[in-house]
């Protein structure tokens, strides 16, 4: 029935008891009675007499100054305009200036409301209608039946429901399931379906459902007539028991805690809530309480995520809920059952890394080129490339594009030979890497039997013709075997009785065994290894010397016992090489001692890099930014290639700490003193080489070449001379060179090989002239330094070449090292700064200091010597090399050494 169908007549009788109290108030207000009240008793009311509610979010009923929108001072002007200029101007005011926002909204009819079309149950419509009815007294006296004012337009949902058999006032639920529980359960289901987005909202929705169900289930008389009256307003059902404002959301600013039951202090939102974090803050804050809760009976309605989840679990009895406090249970999974026939060791079909080796078919073996120089060069490069990888090849190809002697890299003359050598080098390098350290006698024997044939068999190679036309083949065998003797220790642990050199002294023999074991064990030597603890330093050193000698002899003898030809050859070679390397047996033993040290002293290694502190950091540390005013360097431009090439194999030459154990130190000291007489200038030369390595660990190749070009020139000369002199020993020299390349310090060989022919783009140097001058400068400290960075480098390196201090001096210096370290700090900055641009500054600074800083220099030189002693046996080679340098330079240095020593003394 529509309102329009009614006919209104007469004047409605107002019956007081029907009027609500607020209606009365509104009427009273309209009549102006309340205006007499003092301001603080006045209440702002809307047109229906309800207290105007000032925003749920802004604090309740009272707002403004005694419920006015003004302040104590009066009405706040909307915008301040100076009245000085336009004094008499009347401000344009409209009614909008005085209206609240909601009033404006009402005025303009812009408020959002539910479209009646979707008002499925007609609640909104009935509400509106009721209001309307309240406002306009109906024609019929008494309470207006609500159904009379139900909206005429049915919503779509209602229509659909009606078509499905639903009637107004009925709940949607199946009437047969009438029990309290089922009703609730249905409601929950519905709620779960709906409540995916917003918890709070859906809570309220859920409430609505609940209320609906609840009221139904309470067997209230369900009238079709008074559906809306049975619909109790929500707030009546949920008395507010906390102190929070309406709409308070405890998770408003911390949505990550929504649904999380636990405390979250200090634990990131993304972090898992694990056992460790449990029940720590249980007393601190009960989050569950802050969730808007409905007043219900035992079974709480949906409050949070946890409960919702538990409903999905099937094992819960109807009418029960999961205990909120339960023992934490971690789900446990049993370990998978291992089949009985499972063998826990995987057997590889072939040796490891087979694919690496078979991937590249071996290039054909070709005779070396005629030019022995070329041969040496090729082999050197091949060895390097084999170790460092293809990158190095590319690099050197690039560098030497215009150099005819490197034509083999571009596929020119000698390319096949290079390919072959490269392949060999790669094979060998892989083998070295692959070979495990022998742990017991059996395995070591095995590895020793691993020769080319065996390897070929394993790899499935076609065995190479042993005596192919070329001369090279035995050389190659010899080569690898020789290097194996260097790389791979022989096992002495089960020596035959005859080979026990100290049979008469059992204790000594025991120590010798221990010594041998440790010698080839690698790693750091334990402190007691020098000998019996009750021995004096000198005796210990002497014994150590004996051991070294004996070990050397044994090694040779052992190698001699091996029957195969190549080993025999290699032994011959070794002896000859040994003669070549060393002049006296004592020195040789000392060398082996040294290399022994070096093998065991891999650490600590020192590296230096640039590092740019941020300006703020410098400021906070109260330091001057070393990079002030400089552009930030492009990140790591310096050396993708450099670092790859150099770091891969040139493990930055360690600045090895000199002492790890007092014993070693002492023994070495004693040994040194005993061997002091034998030491000659070549040893110093060797140290020079070592220092140079340290300096150039990460230098570009060009610079390296520039520094070494003079040396290598000399080297080339000498080698040529030797060839001219001894044509019949040519093979031996070549072998020596080869050996050097294989086993030697290959940074050095790089420098030499690459510098053999100075590339045309390099400026010509006359180092032979510069070196003495630099030395002179070094010794006198008076000559001005010129600006070339290369020269500076040389002088610096020369500066490092100290004379060997007398050994009795050593311990002294060690004690006073602490004090000197202060000096040497600054000095080391200047000498080893990695940055070339920095170099100028610091070196110039250190120049003045050098006069007085001889102590620190001494220390450095001694440390570099110590360092050099510990380098691998490859040093022999470098020694040989360095001793073949021009003698003039030696003389010069010797003089400067003497002079320095004098000054120190």
């Amino acid at each position, binding site marked *: 029935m529509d309102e329009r169908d009614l006919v209104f007549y007469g004047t409605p009788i107002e019956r007081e008891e029907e009027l609500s109290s607020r209606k009365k108030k509104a009427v009273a207000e309209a009549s102006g009675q309340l205006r007499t009240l003092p301001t603080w008793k006045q209440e702002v009311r809307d047109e229906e007499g309800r207290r105007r509610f000032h925003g749920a979010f802004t604090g309740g009923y009272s707002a403004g100054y005694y419920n006015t929108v003004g302040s104590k001072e009066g009405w706040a002007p909307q915008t301040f305009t100076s009245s000085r200029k336009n004094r008499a101007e009347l401000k344009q005011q409209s009614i909008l200036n005085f209206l609240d926002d909601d009033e404006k909204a009402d005025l303009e009819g812009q408020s959002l409301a539910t479209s009646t079309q979707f008002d499925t149950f007609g609640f909104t419509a009935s509400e509106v209608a009721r209001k309307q009815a309240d406002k306009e007294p109906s024609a019929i006296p008494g309470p207006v039946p609500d159904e009379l004012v139900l909206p005429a337009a049915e919503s779509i949902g209602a229509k659909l429901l009606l078509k499905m058999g639903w009637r107004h006032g009925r709940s949607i639920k199946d009437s047969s399931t009438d029990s309290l529980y089922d009703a609730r359960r249905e409601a929950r289901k519905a709620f779960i379906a709906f409540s995916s987005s917003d918890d709070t909202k859906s809570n309220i929705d859920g409430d609505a459902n609940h209320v609906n169900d609840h009221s139904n289930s309470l067997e209230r008389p369900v009238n079709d007539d008074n559906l809306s009256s049975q619909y109790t307003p929500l707030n009546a059902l949920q008395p507010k028991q906390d102190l929070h404002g309406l709409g308070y959301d405890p998770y408003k600013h911390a949505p990550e805690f929504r649904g999380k039951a636990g405390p979250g*202090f*200090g*634990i*990131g939102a993304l972090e898992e809530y694990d056992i460790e974090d449990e029940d720590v803050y249980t007393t601190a804050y009960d989050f569950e309480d802050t969730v808007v809760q409905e007043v219900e009976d035992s079974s709480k309605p949906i409050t949070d995520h946890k409960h919702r989840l538990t409903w999905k679990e099937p094992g819960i009895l109807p009418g029960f809920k999961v205990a909120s406090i339960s023992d934490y249970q971690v789900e446990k999974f049993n370990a998978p059952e291992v089949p009985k026939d499972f063998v826990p060791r995987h057997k590889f079909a072939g040796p490891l890394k087979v694919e690496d080796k078979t991937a590249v078919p071996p290039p054909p073996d070709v005779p070396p080129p005629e030019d022995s120089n070329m041969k040496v060069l090729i082999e050197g490069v091949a060895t390097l490339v084999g170790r460092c990888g293809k990158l190095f090849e590319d690099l050197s190809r690039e560098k030497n594009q215009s150099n005819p002697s490197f034509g083999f890299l571009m596929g020119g003359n000698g390319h096949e030979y290079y390919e072959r050598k490269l392949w060999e080098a790669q094979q060998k390098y892989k083998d070295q890497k692959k070979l495990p350290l022998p742990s017991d006698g059996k395995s070591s024997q095995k590895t020793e039997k691993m020769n080319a044939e065996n390897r070929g068999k394993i790899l499935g190679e076609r065995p190479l013709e042993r005596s192919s036309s070329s001369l090279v083949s035995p050389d190659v065998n010899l080569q690898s075997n020789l290097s194996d003797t260097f790389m791979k220790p022989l096992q002495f642990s089960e020596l035959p009785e005859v080979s026990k050199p100290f049979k008469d002294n059992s204790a000594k023999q025991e120590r010798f065994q221990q010594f041998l074991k440790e010698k080839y064990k690698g790693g*750091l030597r334990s*402190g007691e290894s020098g000998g019996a603890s009750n021995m004096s330093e000198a005796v210990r050193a002497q014994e150590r010397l004996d051991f070294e000698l004996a070990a050397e002899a044994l090694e040779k003898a052992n190698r001699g016992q091996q029957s195969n030809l190549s080993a025999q050859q290699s032994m011959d070679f070794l002896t000859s090489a040994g003669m070549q390397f060393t002049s006296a047996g004592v020195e040789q033993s000392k060398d082996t001692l040294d290399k022994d040290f070096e093998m065991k*002293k*891999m*650490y*600590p*290694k*020192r*590296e*230096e*890099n*640039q*590092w*740019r*502190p*941020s300006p*703020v*950091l*410098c400021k*906070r*540390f*109260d*330091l*001057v*930014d*070393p*990079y002030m005013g400089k552009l930030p360097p492009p990140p790591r431009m310096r050396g993708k290639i450099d670092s790859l090439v150099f770091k891969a194999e040139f493990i930055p030459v360690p*600045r*090895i*700490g*000199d*002492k*790890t*154990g*007092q014993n070693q130190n002492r023994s070495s000291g004693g040994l040194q003193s005993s061997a002091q007489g034998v030491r000659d200038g070549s040893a110093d030369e060797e140290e020079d080489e070592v220092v140079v390595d340290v300096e150039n660990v990460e230098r570009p190749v060009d610079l390296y070449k520039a520094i070494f070009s003079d040396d290598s020139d000399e080297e080339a000369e000498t080698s040529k001379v030797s060839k001219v002199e001894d044509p019949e020993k040519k093979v031996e020299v070549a072998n020596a060179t080869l050996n050097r390349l294989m086993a030697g310090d290959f940074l050095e060989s790089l420098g030499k090989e690459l510098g053999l022919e100075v590339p045309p783009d390099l400026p010509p140097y006359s180092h032979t002239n510069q070196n003495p001058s630099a030395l002179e400068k070094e010794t006198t400290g008076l000559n001005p330094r010129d600006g070339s960075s290369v020269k500076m480098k040389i002088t610096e390196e020369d500066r490092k070449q100290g004379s060997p201090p007398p050994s009795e001096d050593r311990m002294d210096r060690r004690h006073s*090292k*602490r004090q000197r*370290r*202060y000096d*040497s*700090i600054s000095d*080391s*900055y200047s000498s080893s*700064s*990695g*940055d070339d641009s*920095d170099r100028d500054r610091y070196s110039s600074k250190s120049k003045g200091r050098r006069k007085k800083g001889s102590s620190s220099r001494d220390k*450095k030189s001694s*440390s570099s010597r110590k360092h050099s002693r510990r380098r691998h046996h490859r040093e022999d080679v470098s020694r040989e090399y360095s001793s073949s340098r021009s003698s003039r330079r030696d003389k010069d240095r010797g003089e400067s050494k003497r002079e320095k020593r004098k000054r120190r003394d």
Partner: protein
Amino acid sequence: MSASDLPTKEANVLKGHEGAVLAARFNADGNYCLSCGKDRTIRLWNPHRGIHIKTYKSHGREVRDVHVTPDNSKLISCGGDRQVFYWDVSTGRVIRKFRGHESEVNAVKFNEYSSVAVSAGYDQSLRSWDCRSHSTEPIQIIDTFADSVMSVCLTKTEIIAGSVDGTVRTFDIRVGREISDNLGQPVNCISLSNDGNCILASCLDSTLRLLDRTMGELLQEYKGHTCRSFKLDCCLTNTDAHITGGSEDGYIYFWDLVDATVVSRFRAHASVVTSVSYHPKDSCMVTASVDSTIRVWKT
């Protein structure tokens, strides 16, 4: 100082922590000490009188390291909650929380002026935090390490840190240079000698190594204790004559600096000795242990 002057007598036991104590540190003048531990608290003690003074609670996980400014006004602490907390000592309030580490923070130190705190994290980085400004962003991140950074020391011009990748790296702010000393063994803890010339590095192969800072030489190795899986502190005595460090079996070791001989060893705790800190002036030491006690040792 002879071996008899070593602090081997127990003067006080500081009890209060629940669970393992991860670090105990003297303040700059040695009158107070700070401890932190698994119970997420930092505690301030008077070790000489054995009094617990204050507790600082705010960390959400275990507190791994704490350091106090020389003027005793501020604390810096870090821990498993990946945050670095900057505290006011007297009020016990957190002034600032520095977030940024992607994982647990192992160690933290103030610089000389207390203007910067540098923290070392499991995320293989060092981060320096500005205590002067209100920014909570790190001033600089150093991430050249290849593994977890365990320990950090600051000098006037350098940041030194030890890492599980086996390196002790020195970042020289004055020169703009990084020096990396590879020891070949995971470095647990580093400690500067009082003269600033040496670094003592505790490695996971149960060895303490003394490095010369200038040249990176290995000066000495100290063995005998057990350090294989825990972060154990080590330090030099106030006179630099001895080296001290804890062991995983509850012992405390004293080595002679030069000879590397074990001068003294005694059982101090029931469990792993996580931290040792030596008095800056006197012969006095505090040790912390997993057995939840802190013990004060005097001669």
